[in-house]
């Protein structure tokens, strides 16, 4: 099975700072890590490879530092890491990002299965996976929570608002997986050390020129733009506060909500 896993390096979201007055996002103080959802992607790829053999190619678009995320992917079982770095790729929205990644996947050659994470924790759109599939003209199944069968055909389960679908597909196909699909294992120290020495291939815009239209990369190829950023208004509510002895608090609270008709509103007298 020839598996391709698009991954992303993201800031540690707990460390990102916000300038409320300027409406600016400061990622500089936040460390970078592999998108947490992509750990499930790598685990899924490794499990399939362990069973069926094959290759895992991890691919990422980002700044030169994103090499670290690909090395991490290699420590976790990817055979090959390809980093797409070019100023021409910068400022991409999901359309340009998915186009660039799809172009690189075309350049890699034939593949059977592409596995993406449900979403990234920074962009949080969940769009890039399905968009890659459309660029490549292959089917996809999103929100996969279980790999039921991977072999001659693919059978996966996905949960859609309380209904579980089992969906069968041939190859090639793209799936996006949720955190429920597996529990990622930790890479061993030896894997980490080996990965440190591993070579990540670096491709620029020129390297994709045979498979892509450069005007569709980066800002130029991005139809959406952030017009402005605001901070959500914290419109407070006039809260009645109950404190002190618990029995009194609860009784006082019950009296208030009874008076306000809230219990009646939910079918309690």
């Amino acid at each position: 099975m020839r598996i391709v896993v698009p991954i992303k390096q993201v800031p540690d979201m707990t460390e990102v700072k916000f300038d409320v007055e300027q409406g600016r996002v400061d990622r500089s103080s936040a460390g970078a890590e592999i998108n947490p959802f992509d750990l499930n992607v790598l685990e899924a790829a490794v499990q399939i490879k362990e069973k069926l053999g094959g290759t895992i190619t991890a691919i990422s678009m980002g700044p030169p530092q994103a090499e670290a995320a690909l090395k991490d992917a290699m420590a976790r079982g990817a055979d090959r890491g390809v980093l797409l770095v070019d100023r021409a790729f910068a400022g991409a929205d999901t359309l340009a990002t998915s186009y660039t990644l799809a172009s690189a996947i075309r350049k890699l050659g034939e593949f059977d299965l592409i596995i993406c994470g449900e979403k990234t924790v920074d962009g949080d759109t969940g769009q890039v996976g399905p968009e890659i599939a459309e660029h490549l003209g292959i089917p996809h199944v999103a929100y996969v929570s279980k790999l039921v069968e991977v072999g001659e055909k693919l059978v996966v389960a996905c949960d859609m608002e309380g209904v579980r679908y089992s969906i069968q597909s041939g190859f090639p196909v793209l799936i996006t997986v949720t955190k429920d699909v597996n529990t990622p294992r930790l890479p061993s120290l030896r894997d980490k050390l080996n990965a440190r020495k591993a070579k990540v291939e670096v491709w620029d815009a020129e390297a994709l020129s045979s498979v892509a239209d450069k005007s569709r990369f980066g800002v130029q190829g991005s139809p959406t733009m952030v017009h402005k950023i605001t901070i959500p208004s914290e419109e407070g509510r006039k809260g009645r506060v109950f404190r002190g002895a618990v029995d009194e608090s609860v009784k006082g609270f019950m009296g208030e909500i009874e008076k306000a008709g809230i219990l009646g509103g939910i079918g309690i007298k």
Partner: protein
Amino acid sequence: MNDYAGLMVFAEQRDGKIHPVAYELLGKGKELADRVGVGVSSVLLGHQMEEEAQELIYYGADKVFLYDHPALEDFDLLNYKHNIVRLVKEVKPEVFLLGATHLGRSLGPRVAVALSTGLTADCTGLDVDKDGSLIQIRPAFSGNILAHIKTKTRPQMSTVRYKVMPKGVRDASRKGEIIKKDAEIVPSLLTIVNKEKSGEVNIAEADVIVSGGRGLKRAEDFTILAELAKLCGGVVGSSRPLVDDGWIGKEHQVGFSGNTVKPKLYIACGISGSSQHLAGMRDSDVIVAINTDPSAPIFKLADYAIVGDLYEVVPRLTNEIRSRSS
């Protein structure tokens, strides 16, 4: 770009029933379209759904494009995409909206790429700019900021969160046109081999939610909340850390990266109120917060703040309510 006009809403259906997010989008869409002076249309794909198509008119559609074919009865990704793309190319709406449900989030990106246009994910607000273009507002960075996004290409496409827009008003005297379209069926490549209720709670639809946060000491203690929830005819919710730790399933998660909820009554137990959590429940009708820390951010949003330990407060609350309901 000038030959694009009007606003179109994708009406998602499951088992022949239209998902209510479509009615929310029609309500909001009509409001925006009226401001610009254009019409609202809707596209519905399914089998034998003419009665439901009428509902879309009652909720604000001037035209409904109806695709009726057995192959469209269930969600078929490639056939849905193929027919929607053909329709959009023909009708040329300026704006195309989908609900940010699992289905909408899976289908929307494919339609956007096929049309080479932009798609803004998971919007919580929509507005029209002075120049008539769509402003798409979405929370970013865990709900800490709101990004206002504009799209250069047409149609301007967005997926919009369920339960953030008020449901439009149903007016059974509204007149509109149902236009039957012939579906073009392409190889589906994906087969649904089984479909079953997963037994998951549907937290977005609950009238009462009793949610737990870090104030809970053990996963088992969710039963304390479950008892109160059950008594009120509600369900249990959770903040993100407990879901991440595997204490409870993701379907219970309330917040920016979980579910947006708007129940009649939201009881937050031991939840401090991160912006990520508040983004998912701030529009609840009545918010009750129980927390030991009087400075917890959740209290700013609460209608009723009980300063105290949930382990002492919740069981007493349960008893009080039980004595009234029996």
